[in-house]
């Protein structure tokens, strides 16, 4: 009676006694009172459903099902109770079906409030999770019941759950029976999703969430195809951009589960719609989605397994595409040529079969068109299309060599490429070079004759004049790529020519400089390094370059530092190319480094009549170029080989042991750490390049002695170049040294040295440099002492003599070096060191700024702006409010460097945090406009870029300033510098 269980036992369980104790309110004639009673019971159950026994569950379910017939005010609480029961593990089988049937029958879900509808979806979800078999026994009735439940749903929160349920119905293979179309209708009526989240929506559901969720449903089964495809076509054809995009993306998703059968009837319409979108759209996104959809369609058609007698739709589909596109390919000046090529390429990229079909039809056409058109620009367009089709070939591998569709066209393609390479138009040459590279990448396509011709062209292009640099660079790159694939062709046809060229260059150098010869010589050096991409080629080219250096050193030519630097740059590029191959890497290291050291040592020997070249080798720039060669040749060595090398090089510098150098009969001893040898001392930079690039676990012999010598040299005031090199070398070793007693000793020595030097006397600036580099070494590895040293550096901002240098020192601390303390050189660089430095030190900098006397305040601002400038913007954003006033003050600082770095700091902040910046708009507008007439061009440009960025602020904030700004920006429009005017135009246009 009324769902009440009979009380058989005299001692009912707690749940049933709760039920009975509520009887008075549950049977109350007033529906509100009944609702409250059930609400209380449901709340209890929600908390304790895990404790319920099977017997209790049976009674409670019966009771609740009965209540569903009650007054509508009661229903929400009843549903809560059922939700609690749906979570019960003890629910006996059969009851889930009975609950759902009751709900389907008794409740009109869509007239309930949102929360209660959500509860119904929850009940269904719970049952689907735990009682799948049981629900499936309901057959299609379950599906139909659910369709009725969700029909008319409008709340985005509920829809996300409902879509999930539909997806599960389909993917877990529930019976849909005759209700496929109904299920489609009840979901597809939301397509395309039209939803704008309310402002300040606490639920955070975005349009995109609904789109993806619905797409998963619609694209989950081929059974929807006959209904979905017409809908998609209709929406692609609509005028609404978002509908087009969503439809194309959904079509793309569908192709993953569809087959020929589903697509068959719709292919002509789909193609017409996609073609129209790609031909005529104004939106690149629609074009991209259209192409992606075509790609998937073709892939889908290629994938299907056919019965022997069935028609293959792929062929007719592709032939349609070809028919509609091919005539546009013959009009290389017209707008539709590229959309047509893109469509064909999208289809050809889908499968090997599609690629064969399209390539075999399009290649002859394009080859013919190339010859039909004589203008370079038209030929370029045709060749670019051709290139696109050739690239697609690389996606598919062919087991049988003869099957490759390109084989038949090889000769025509080659002759066409060689025509392009000899064309006067640089643009056409460039495409020709790219095409040659792609052809070369096809395995076994080019014959040795083709290669010889190609190499000849590349050789010619590698020496192009100034005005076709882009072509020359492309030719060098192509040589590198192809040389790795065809080392024999390049070492027999290109390297000898370059060697000859180098010899000619040498003899020309002797005669004196002629600019064209000089640039030819440079081209030759670059070509030699560019082609060194294969170990066997390196073995030929490296000796050539080193030989060349020796020749220059032999002395009968007037060498300039730029020549030696050019050779070093080539060596460095070669070293970079060798890094990936351990064998080449060791070969390069073993061959080049002793040779370079020998040359340098030779040059550093005191002589009565110093030759010109020897001085050249010791110049700062030349040594820096050698440093980068040595560093690059060392970083990728294996620890074992590096250890082998270190036992030669360290004794060379400490003991003057020259035995491993080639041609090592020097007039006097090599003692770079001795006082009197100022030329030799400069070579410490080369030692630095080597030891600071070694892997961390390589043990350095005589380390203690080396560190002491370096420290001594670093505070020696006769030659800033060598003392800085020594300081950097010391810092580089310090950074990698494992923590422990020895490290502490080194640090103590360094601190003592710094303090002694900073006191007074001639070595203050050297001691400062040492402090800076040691600080950097420690900051990078988060060493505890780094904070002391940074504090010392900050003290120096107040120093009248070293203050400006200390301010610039912050830039060095925050930036990445190229020669020492690099990650590539195995230094210990913690990833967040900048952020950490910022958090640790900026408060002190700000405080120091406020406390500092007026004349040194700019030092603090400069230091601060260096730190901010290097910081990732996301880290900076939260700190902004506290720093902004300081930055605004920095804008008024007369120092150009501070202005510039502050502007470059503010500009991204304007773009990324317009809300915060809005508060200061008045100040910003005034200051930026003032700076836009600064005497420094760079500041004017940066200020105008900031003016441009200001337009990102909310419009209401900007409007009051608009007339004033537009008037003020008229002035920089007439700036004498074009680069300034350009920024002024874009800023003013934006305002």
């Amino acid at each position, binding site marked *: 009676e009324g769902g009440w269980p009979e009380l058989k036992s005299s001692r009912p369980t707690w749940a049933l006694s709760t039920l009975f104790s509520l009887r008075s309110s549950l049977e109350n004639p007033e529906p509100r009172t009944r609702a409250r009673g059930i609400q209380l019971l449901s709340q209890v159950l929600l908390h304790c459903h895990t404790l319920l026994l099977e017997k209790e569950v049976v009674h409670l379910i019966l009771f609740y099902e009965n209540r569903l017939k009650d007054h509508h005010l009661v229903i929400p609480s009843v549903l809560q109770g059922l939700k609690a029961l749906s979570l019960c593990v003890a629910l006996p089988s059969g009851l889930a079906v009975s609950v759902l049937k009751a709900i389907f029958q008794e409740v009109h879900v869509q007239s309930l409030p949102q929360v209660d509808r959500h509860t119904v979806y929850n009940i269904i979800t719970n049952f689907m999770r735990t009682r799948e078999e049981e629900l499936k026994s309901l057959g299609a009735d379950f599906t139909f019941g659910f369709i009725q439940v969700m029909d008319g749903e409008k709340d985005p929160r509920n829809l996300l759950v409902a879509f999930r349920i539909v997806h599960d119905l389909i993917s877990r293979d529930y019976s849909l029976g005759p209700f496929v179309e109904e299920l489609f209708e009840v979901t597809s009526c939301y397509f395309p999703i039209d939803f704008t989240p309310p402002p300040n929506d606490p639920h955070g559901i975005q349009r995109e969430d609904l789109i993806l969720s619905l797409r998963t449903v619609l694209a989950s089964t081929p059974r929807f195809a006959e209904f979905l495809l017409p809908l998609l076509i209709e929406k692609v054809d609509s005028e609404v951009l978002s509908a087009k995009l969503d439809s194309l993306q959904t079509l793309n998703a569908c192709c993953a589960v569809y087959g020929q059968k589903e697509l068959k009837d719709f292919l002509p319409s789909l193609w017409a*719609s996609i073609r129209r979108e790609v031909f005529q759209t104004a939106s690149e996104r629609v074009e991209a989605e259209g192409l992606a959809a075509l790609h998937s369609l073709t892939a889908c058609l290629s994938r299907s397994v056919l019965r022997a007698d069935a028609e293959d739709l792929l062929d007719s589909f592709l032939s349609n595409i070809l028919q509609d596109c091919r005539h546009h390919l013959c009009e290389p000046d017209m707008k539709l040529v590229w959309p047509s090529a893109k469509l064909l390429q999208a289809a050809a990229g889908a499968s090997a079969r599609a690629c064969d079909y399209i390539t075999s039809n399009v290649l002859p056409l394009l080859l013919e068109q190339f010859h039909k058109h004589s203008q370079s620009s038209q030929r370029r367009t045709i060749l670019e299309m051709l290139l696109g089709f050739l690239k697609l070939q690389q996606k598919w591998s062919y087991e049988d060599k003869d099957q490759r569709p390109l084989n038949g066209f090889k000769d025509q393609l080659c002759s066409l490429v060689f025509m392009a390479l000899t064309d006067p138009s640089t643009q056409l040459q460039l495409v020709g070079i790219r095409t040659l590279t792609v052809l070369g990448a096809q395995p076994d396509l080019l014959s040795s004759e083709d290669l010889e011709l190609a190499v000849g062209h590349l050789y010619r292009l590698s020496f192009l004049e100034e005005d076709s640099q882009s072509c020359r660079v492309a030719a060098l790159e192509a040589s590198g790529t192809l040389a790795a694939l065809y080392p024999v062709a390049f070492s027999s046809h290109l390297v000898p020519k370059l060697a000859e060229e180098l010899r000619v260059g040498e003899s020309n150098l002797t005669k004196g400089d002629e600019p064209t010869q000089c640039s030819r010589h440079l081209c030759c050096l670059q070509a030699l390094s560019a082609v060194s991409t294969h170990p066997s080629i390196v073995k030929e080219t490296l000796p050539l370059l080193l030989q060349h250096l020796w020749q220059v050193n032999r002395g009968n030519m007037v060498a300039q530092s730029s020549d030696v630097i050019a050779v070093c740059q080539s060596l460095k590029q070669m070293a970079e190319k060798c890094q990936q191959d351990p064998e080449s890497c060791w070969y390069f290291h073993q061959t080049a480094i002793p040779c370079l050291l020998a040359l340098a040592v030779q040059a550093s020997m005191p002589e009565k009549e110093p030759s010109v070249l020897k001085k050249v080798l010791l110049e700062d720039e030349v040594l820096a170029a050698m440093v980068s060669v040595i560093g690059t040749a060392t970083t990728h060595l294996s620890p074992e080989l590096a250890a082998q090398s270190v036992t030669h090089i360290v004794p060379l510098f400490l003991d003057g042991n020259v035995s491993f150098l080639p041609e090592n009969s020097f007039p006097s001893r090599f003692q770079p750490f001795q006082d009197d040898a100022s030329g030799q001392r400069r070579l410490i930079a080369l030692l630095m390049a080597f030891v600071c690039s070694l892997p961390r676990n390589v043990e350095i012999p005589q380390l203690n002695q080396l560190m002491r010598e370096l420290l001594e040299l670093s505070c020696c005031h006769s030659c800033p170049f060598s003392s800085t090199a020594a300081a950097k070398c010391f810092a580089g070793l310090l950074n990698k040294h494992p923590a422990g007693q020895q490290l502490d000793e080194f640090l103590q020595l360094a601190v003592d040295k710094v303090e002694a030097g900073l006191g007074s006397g001639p070595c203050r600036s050297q001691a400062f440099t040492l402090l800076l580099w040691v600080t950097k070494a420690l900051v990078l590895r988060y060493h505890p002492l780094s904070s002391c040293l940074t504090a010392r550096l900050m003290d120096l901002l107040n120093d009248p003599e070293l203050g400006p240098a200390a301010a610039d020192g912050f830039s060095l601390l925050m930036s990445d070096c190229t020669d020492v303390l690099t990650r590539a050189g195995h230094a210990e660089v913690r990833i967040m060191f900048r952020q950490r430095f910022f958090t640790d030190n900026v408060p002190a900098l700000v405080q120091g700024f406020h406390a500092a006397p007026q004349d040194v305040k700019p030092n603090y601002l400069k230091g601060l702006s260096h730190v901010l400038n290097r910081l990732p913007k996301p880290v900076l954003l939260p700190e902004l409010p506290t720093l902004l006033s300081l930055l605004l003050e920095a804008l008024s600082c007369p120092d150009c460097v501070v202005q510039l770095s502050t502007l470059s700091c503010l500009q991204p902040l304007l773009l990324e945090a317009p809300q915060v910046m809005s508060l200061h708009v008045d100040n910003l507008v005034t200051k930026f406009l003032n700076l836009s007439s600064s005497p420094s061009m760079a500041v004017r440009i940066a200020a105008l870029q900031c003016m441009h960025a200001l337009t990102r602020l909310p419009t209401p904030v900007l409007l009051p300033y608009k007339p004033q700004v537009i008037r003020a920006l008229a002035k920089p429009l007439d700036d004498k510098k074009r*680069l300034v005017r350009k920024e002024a135009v874009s800023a003013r246009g934006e305002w």
Partner: protein
Amino acid sequence: MVGGGGVGGGGGLLENANPLIYQRSGERPVTAGEEDEQVPDSIDAREIFDLIRSINDPEHPLTLEELNVVEQVRVQVSDPESTVAVAFTPTIPHCSMATLIGLSIKVKLLRSLPQRFKMDVHITPGTHASEHAGKGGLVVRTTVLERVEQKQEREHKFT
């Protein structure tokens, strides 16, 4: 649904659906003189051309440069005399967009050049059916307003 053949159904909206296209000139390379603080750079034809070449055509997602509507050789400029003359060539002789294109060029120049410049924007002689009408149209505001209204109407219809 769009039938086969030709350029698809929406083609009716466009007067010239498959126009000839021309190559874009790259960014102007920055010379050493331009980076030197001291050297003044005068306003030249290329600078004016750079200002207007990226204006989009009213009916294509293409720039005036790509459609060859504007060319650097058709820009006459004299910095000392503060004068600019730009001649533009509509893609087809009966192009109804000529007025709009001329106006776009003029507005862009007004916004981007110093006030001292006098500017003259006109159709290249002999390239447009209604050359003079086009030239007169540059100052008639209603033409533009109507266009905006039409556009809004279209938008209303589809949303």
